[in-house]
């Protein structure tokens, strides 16, 4: 990559300069004409693919939510029945509640941990050590959630798991991690945060690097030290990054599936069943495609509402330089 960095650096500077127009080849009339043709040819695969595999399915999903259909017999229109059934279904309600609790706990842990570690790594750290920590925290992101959940299941085993062995060293009796509702929920959260905090960490590192050093100098001239410096300088200046990191973390946590599916299959009981798991089960195990679509539509509406609310709130709390 080293040979390409100067070009890419220039590229990024250009991209960041407002008002720099993109290259616009072809000033002649015929050039403009062939440009338009080339544009549509170049866009065709992406636009057709997205239309076919994203836009049409969105519309189809909404329409399907008003039908009862098991693929085998013809679909019948049932109005809002699917929504009514879904809202009254205790399993669906529990799974949505689980998802909300999961999002709140996992995202706060993930962001808190990432922010604390990013601040610690950023201050007066030898460059090689910083590079080491960056790689270490980034590492879990490259693994598949399925493999991670497989080995974490062994680590959290009640009898021979390493986690309980370490706890026993501290005199703590064996915790039934995967066989109790609370324990499984805790494991799903821990495993998810373990794998994903590195992403928020990277975003915070980028955000911290963009805070000019002079701001801190000015603050320390005004007598701000240590903790106060972070509360009054770092946090406000970091708020755009925090907004972005929280939006992305919440959207991805709302869609959690792999970890609870492999770790617990949603159990014990319904204790780790998530919204996406219920979509999967009702569509591909019970063949209730209409109900699955209804759950999907509700989940999408929740995601959209939360995202909109975050951006609205951010107008009051996010401080832009």
């Amino acid at each position, binding site marked *: 990559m080293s040979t390409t960095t100067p070009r890419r650096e220039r590229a990024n500077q250009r991209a960041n300069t407002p008002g720099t127009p993109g290259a616009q080849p072809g000033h002649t009339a015929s050039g403009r004409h062939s440009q338009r043709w080339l544009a549509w040819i170049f866009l065709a695969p992406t636009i057709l693919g997205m239309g076919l595999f994203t836009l049409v399915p969105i519309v*189809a999903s909404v329409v399907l939510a008003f039908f009862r259909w098991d693929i085998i017999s013809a679909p019948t229109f049932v109005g809002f029945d699917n929504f009514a059934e879904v809202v009254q279904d205790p399993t669906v309600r529990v799974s949505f509640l689980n998802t909300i609790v999961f999002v709140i706990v996992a995202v706060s842990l993930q962001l808190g941990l990432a922010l604390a570690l990013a601040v610690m790594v950023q201050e007066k750290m030898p460059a090689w050590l910083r590079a080491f920590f960056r790689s270490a925290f980034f590492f879990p992101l490259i693994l598949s959630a399925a493999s991670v959940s497989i080995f974490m299941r062994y680590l959290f085993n009640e009898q021979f798991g390493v986690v309980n062995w370490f706890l026993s060293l501290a005199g703590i009796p064996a915790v039934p991690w995967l066989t109790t509702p609370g324990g499984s929920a805790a494991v799903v959260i821990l495993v998810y945060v373990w794998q994903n905090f590195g992403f928020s960490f990277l975003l915070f590192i980028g955000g911290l690097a963009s805070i000019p050093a002079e701001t801190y100098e000015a603050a320390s001239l005004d007598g701000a030290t240590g903790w106060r410096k972070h509360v009054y300088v770092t946090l406000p200046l970091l708020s755009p990054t925090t907004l972005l990191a929280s939006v992305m973390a919440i959207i991805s946590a709302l869609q959690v599936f792999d970890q609870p*599916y492999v770790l617990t299959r949603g159990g014990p009981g319904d204790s780790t069943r998530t919204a996406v798991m219920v*979509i999967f089960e009702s569509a591909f195990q019970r063949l209730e495609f209409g109900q699955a679509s209804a759950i999907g539509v509700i989940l999408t509406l929740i995601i959209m509402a939360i995202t909109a609310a975050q951006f609205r709130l951010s107008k009051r709390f996010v401080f832009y330089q």
Partner: protein
Amino acid sequence: MSITTERVSTGTAPAVPARPRRKLNWNLVLRIVLLMIAAVLTLGPVMWTLSTSLRSPSESFMLPPSFFPWNPDFTSYAQVFQQLDIVLLVLNSALVTGLIAVGQMITAAMAGYAFANLKFRGRGALFSIVLATMMVPVQVTIVPVFMLIRGMGLSDTLLALILPAIPTAFGTFLMRQYFLGLPADLAEAASIDGATPWRTFRSVYAPLAVPGMAIVGILAFNFHWNEFFRPLIMTISEQNFTLPLGLVSLQGNLGTGSISVVLAGVVLSMIPALVVFIFGQRALQDGLTAGSGK
């Protein structure tokens, strides 16, 4: 953008590791200790996985756990090959991931170039639509996509995994940013020389776009190599399974007796991800955080 800011901060780095002459900086020591604990907790489970996979199946439960494989025993690896058609799984995963990555690199470069460098009506609106599709969760579209795939007669084939994954909003966005960053003079020079827009793309811009396309490819590889949800739904017969599915089935079919075999499979599945990590770490980090800059 993260690349530039990072470079600025490392540019001032020589001033940073000022050796403490007067007294030890306890604050720094405490921070490094805390960060080290976090790093051990992050890498520890992976180390344990590796070391346990290198123990004989009968020793795999042993406590205290060992984190260093002093006497590696490769029988578990041999058993993975006996109990699981791992060659087929790797081939399936490689085929699916490779074709998605190449497909994304080509289509994203084309679309990104169109959005950045070519003028046509509706460019802004179309780009907004492309960006908006990034917000749609896979789970919401999965039922209609599954039916569409069935309707196309592709259910339970690898194409069912490949085709829907090729159009990429994020890749298109990345490539557009990349092309916007290339100097505009290049296009002017080419058009003065009488090059057609196609010629300008093929001879001038496409060769310059290779590093950007590499980021798109590496991101696609990492994501789809690890993908579990779509393969779980789209494939039924074991001959079409990808690695993550195969591993989960290996864990399910066997008792708790052969942890080391399951973990050997997990380690084998991590090797390609590890190679990408070693060679493409920078590109991956830049790609993931692209667009987060102000």
